[in-house]
């Protein structure tokens, strides 16, 4: 009787055939059925996935390659020299000086440094940021209640939407003469122009965000005894907040376009002014320095808002 179990199990083994059964508790090295794809596969397969750190490396590689190409474009005589040396091009070819069109990255960095140290560039950046934020905050403070109001009452929406839609389609540069007539060429004119460019866009986006709050959420509020004001505060604002912050982030990006337009037209300060006066004196590296500064500020602001979004709306994940 005691012998029976081992006999049976060995019979099963023989039937299964190939390898001897491992002792219980020993780890067996089986080939993985569906192996983790390599990082390279993750990067190159259709809709593949990669770890975050890999995305970061790839981003750095992209920037470095871009800088190298840029540097080459700024010094085309190097390419010509190389091609001549190989024998593709005949010796003695002249290359026009390209510096007027493409400033070398190192020249731009030097110019940036000079701008900050000798030309109070920080003040220009400060004034541009100030104009943007005053206009943007004014637009947001007005757009949130008006947008929600439009989404809440058909009457308000019916009255405002045609006008808002009309103004929204006006190109901001076309409004510059009007704002100059109204406000002169000081800060007020710039802020007014930025406000015109953002408020009418944002208010419709916010109205849409509020409208997209699921009907169920609002009805939950109604059936636990909340009044309209309480539903607005405790449900609608909370439910729409993540998409609203995303939309405002995009709206802030438009502000940079408009501030440069405003500062190019008539100004004696701001990043747009620096770019425009550099053009007048054909100081190409300075134009690049101005443009890059805007890009970097935009990137940093965007990342900061994204970070805050991830932090405050962590419940979405």
């Amino acid at each position: 009787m005691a012998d029976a179990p081992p006999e049976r199990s060995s019979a099963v083994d023989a039937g299964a055939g190939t390898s001897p059964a491992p002792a219980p508790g020993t780890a067996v090295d089986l080939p993985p059925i569906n192996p983790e794809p390599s990082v390279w596969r993750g990067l190159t397969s259709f809709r593949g996935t990669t770890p975050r750190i890999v995305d970061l490396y790839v981003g750095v590689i992209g920037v470095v390659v871009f800088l190298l190409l840029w540097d080459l474009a700024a010094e085309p005589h190097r390419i010509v020299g190389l091609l001549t040396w190989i024998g593709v091009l005949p010796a003695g070819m002249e290359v026009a000086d390209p510096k007027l069109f493409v400033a070398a990255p190192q020249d731009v960095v030097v110019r940036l440094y000079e701008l900050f140290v000798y030309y109070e560039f920080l003040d220009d950046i400060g004034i541009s940021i100030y104009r943007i934020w005053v206009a943007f905050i004014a637009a947001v403070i007005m757009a949130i209640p008006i947008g929600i109001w439009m989404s809440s009452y058909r009457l308000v929406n019916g009255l405002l939407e045609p006008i808002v839609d009309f103004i929204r389609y006006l190109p901001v540069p076309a409004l510059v003469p009007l704002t100059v007539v109204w406000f002169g060429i000081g800060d007020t004119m710039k802020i007014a122009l930025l406000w015109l460019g953002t408020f009418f866009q944002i208010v419709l986006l916010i109205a849409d965000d509020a409208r997209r709050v699921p009907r169920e959420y609002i009805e939950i509020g109604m059936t636990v005894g909340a009044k309209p004001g309480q539903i607005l505060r405790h449900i609608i604002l909370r439910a729409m907040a993540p998409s609203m912050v995303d939309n405002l982030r995009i709206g802030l990006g438009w502000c940079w376009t408009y501030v440069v337009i405003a500062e190019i037209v008539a100004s004696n300060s701001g990043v747009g002014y620096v770019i425009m006066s550099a053009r007048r004196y054909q100081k190409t590296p300075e134009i690049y320095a101005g443009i890059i500064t805007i890009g970097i500020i935009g990137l940093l602001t965007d990342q900061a808002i994204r970070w805050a979004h991830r932090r405050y709306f962590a419940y979405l994940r």
Partner: protein
Amino acid sequence: MPAAQAFISIDRVSKSFQVDQRTPPIAVINDVSIAIEEGELVVFLGPSGCGKTTLMRIVGGLESATRGRVQIDGQPVRGPSRQQGMVFQSYSSFPWLNVIDNVRFGLKFRDDVDAAEKERIARHYLELVGLKGFETYYVNRISGGMRQRLAIARTLAAGPDVLLMDEPFGALDAQNRDFLQAQLDIIQRSEHKTIVFVTHDVEEAVFLADRIIIFSARPARILEEVRVSDYLPAERNLETKESETFFKLRNRILAITRAQALRTEQLLMEARTTP
């Protein structure tokens, strides 16, 4: 007039929607009267889009009737209120609040109880639906079944007279649905709430209901009423679904709904062939 004594009386309710100005209004509910007793669990059963949900929403005050009237405890329904609690199939709780705060939300706007009592009630219902230990979890981190239990806890915490449930288990997998149906039966027996439960799932209807009201395709009218409580015991459990009576009831109701579906199909075909 039995309707006068009933806890919920739905009295000759009709509803039609005007889609746009050029087409005639679409009739959704056609002259429906139902009397529901206090503590009764009534299931509205019918094909998708038949108007049963609309009827339940009219009871909840979330929609108005074109004709007829609805009274709860002798009071005409004038709009949504804390007396009519709602459990939805999706978006049933708030993702920006954690579990316990979602339950507390049901009590937030009550001024008939003090803060300490609110907290006690919230904890009580959290425990009743078996979510104790998940207080700090956000809604996106718990399962679909737990979300529906959470919605039930929040709705009960608001202290409603009537619980209106709109296919609350429709999006769940079969095992979870089984489990939640059994839990709802337990909750119903401990809380003695009047419940209107909308579903198109015949087995779910038979398992839960004291009484099933079978609706026709749109516009909804009552095809038949089945008093399940005459056949099945008040206390239901998973064995109930194995019993012969359960099968017989299920088959009888399926026969009604199938015949109705067939007829609707035929009507649609005729409408298409005749110019």
